[in-house]
């Protein structure tokens, strides 16, 4: 015999009551675990994907939307910007890197992104198979896309217009898979990548068709409105890019810009500053002097977390409420059990147990209940996170799993043990004070 066995035997005896207490505590713990796992992984996701990016330049609109669509590929883009204007800004000394993105198409829910090799370089992507695109209509798949859509090198796909599955199909142009990336836990895993020119090529006919039908609801990587402003900057532009692929623009964007492309459009530019000082001046310059806007990922994600934080706090409060209820329930269970068990306790005293031993016996019972509840809660929390994560992965570009363990969870175990001790203290003192002679003489 030992105290553990003894305490366990009493827990086993009250099966239903134990189930209730363990369940209550487990629900509370699970709720907090889910919040912890979500907020932590969400934050990791957001910071990992925005690493090294200081600003996103795009069409005017909600800056948060620009960040979400430009960096995380989660929301619809704010619109297009004229390529000419975007390229004019690139030589600015504040800019070290400016990665162009052309969005608007997808393949069975996976977004197709027209960009330059600099985008892959920025996320340190490596090819698992094949090679980078070399010509228009060649694509490179993120690891998850290749895996889930079951595509291999040489396969051909048809992109569809819009960012969700079921848009207008561009079936005149078959895109051919040239390469597949290694998994690198960034947004790239869920993207289909190609050159900016590929995006333009896909849309040429469509745009013409849509011009006739006057359907301009969808935003895509070609915008004819910009032509009005075209003449205005013509001379300037030609001067800057007299030969094919202005070297400075090529270096900063990875894009061989020629005046011939000046009528085209892109969706956004991901900017890395050359010095931290630029953060103070560059956005102001863009917002005031151009038709575009510059949004800061750091600022916008902080704002997003402030918004989400309220939700997290509410859910966390619910979890804490459940834990307090569980503590109260354990307390009531032990308190009433002590009344029924006072004869058992008296017998233990006659067998030589000190009052202190009975105190520990009851405390241990509370701790065991807490421990069982915590173990069940952690398991439940991770399971729920994983299921929610899978569901979210399909709906959003967020990878959240239940397979991640956080240091905070050790704190949670500690907290639960403390809750167990607290709820057992008063019953334990009752046990400690058992009047053996009086109890035994009762019958």
């Amino acid at each position, binding site marked *: *015999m*030992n105290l553990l*066995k*003894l305490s366990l*035997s*009493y827990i*086993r*005896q009250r099966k239903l009551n134990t189930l209730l207490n363990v369940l209550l505590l487990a629900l509370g713990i699970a709720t907090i675990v889910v919040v912890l796992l979500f907020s932590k992984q969400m934050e990791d996701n957001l910071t990992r994907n925005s690493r090294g990016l200081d600003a996103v330049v795009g069409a005017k609109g909600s800056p948060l939307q620009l960040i979400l669509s430009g960096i995380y590929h989660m929301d619809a883009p704010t619109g297009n910007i004229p390529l000419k204007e975007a390229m004019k800004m690139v030589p600015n000394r504040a800019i070290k890197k400016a990665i162009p993105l052309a969005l608007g198409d997808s393949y069975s829910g996976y977004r197709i992104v027209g960009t330059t090799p600099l985008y892959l370089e920025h996320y340190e992507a490596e090819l698992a198979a094949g090679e980078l695109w070399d010509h228009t209509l060649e694509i490179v798949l993120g690891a998850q896309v290749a895996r889930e859509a079951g595509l291999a090198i040489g396969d051909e796909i048809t992109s569809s217009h819009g960012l969700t599955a079921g848009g207008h199909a561009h079936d005149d142009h078959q895109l051919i898979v040239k390469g597949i990336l290694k998994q690198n836990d960034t947004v790239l895993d869920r993207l289909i990548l190609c050159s900016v020119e590929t995006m333009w090529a896909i849309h040429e006919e469509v745009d013409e068709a849509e011009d006739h039908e006057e359907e301009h609801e969808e935003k895509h990587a070609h915008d004819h409105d910009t032509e009005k402003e075209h003449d205005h900057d013509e001379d300037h532009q030609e001067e800057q890019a007299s030969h094919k692929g202005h070297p400075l623009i090529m270096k900063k964007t990875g894009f061989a810009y020629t005046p011939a492309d000046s009528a085209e459009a892109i969706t956004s530019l991901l900017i890395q500053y050359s010095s931290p000082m630029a953060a103070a001046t560059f956005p102001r310059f863009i917002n005031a002097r151009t038709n575009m806007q510059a949004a800061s990922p750091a600022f916008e994600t902080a704002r997003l977390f402030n918004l989400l934080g309220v939700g997290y706090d509410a859910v966390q409060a619910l979890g804490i409420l459940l834990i307090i209820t569980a503590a109260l329930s354990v307390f009531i269970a032990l308190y009433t059990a002590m009344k029924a068990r006072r*004869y*058992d306790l008296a*017998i*233990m*005293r*006659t*067998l*030589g*147990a*000190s*009052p*202190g*031993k009975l105190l520990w016996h009851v405390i241990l019972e509370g701790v065991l209940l807490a421990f069982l509840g915590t173990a069940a809660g952690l398991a439940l929390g991770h399971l729920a996170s994983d299921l929610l994560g899978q569901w979210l992965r399909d709906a959003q570009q967020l990878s959240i799993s239940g397979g991640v363990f956080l240091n905070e969870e050790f704190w949670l175990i500690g907290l639960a043990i403390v809750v167990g001790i607290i709820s057992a203290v008063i019953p334990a003192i009752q046990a400690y004070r058992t009047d*053996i*002679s009086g109890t*035994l*003489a009762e*019958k």
Partner: protein
Amino acid sequence: MFKLKNISHKYDGKTVLSLPEVDAAQGDHWLLLGNSGSGKTTLLHILAGLLNPTSGSVIIGDKDLAQLPKGELDRFRGKHIGIIFQQMHLLPTLTIRENLLMAPYMAGNPQDPARVAEVLESLDIADKASSYPQTLSFGQQQRAAIARAVMNNPTLILADEPTSALDDVSCEQVIQLLLDQATRYNATLLIATHDQRIKSHFEHQLDLDKISGEGA
């Protein structure tokens, strides 16, 4: 073996027990007689160190119970005194084997499974080791309670009304069991009872009804 010196106990200001000196030798078998309310249980609890007498002293072996610190008194009781109550009160959540092991565990003695087997064997309930108390008959439960009381080779065995609920045959059996076990361990046995049927087995008797009459 045990010595009671001028024990008296008051409860709510009323004297419920008052005894002159009582002296018992190791291995003696004593009967403590008295009607209900005569203070039998009180005296039993005082002897077991479960209750402090209002005055007087209890000496068991060479220890004065009043002189022992609290924790040590619990341990001393566990190691040297086996107690059998009218209600057996085996712990319902434990098997008979675990109930028996509680005795050495709580007393701080080594837990020897062979000892459990031996004690159960001597009381003829070896086959019940893995059963829970509530599945045993009344008689078997009583044997199990006796088994628990003798687990630690006690030098003093106290029994409170062990026969009052029994018919004549069972009464005789239980008394024989208690005497057997006491003799086996050379323990001093004291049975508190108002059961007149068992008087003939005991040469040493303490009748509280008579003593309090004399004392008063």
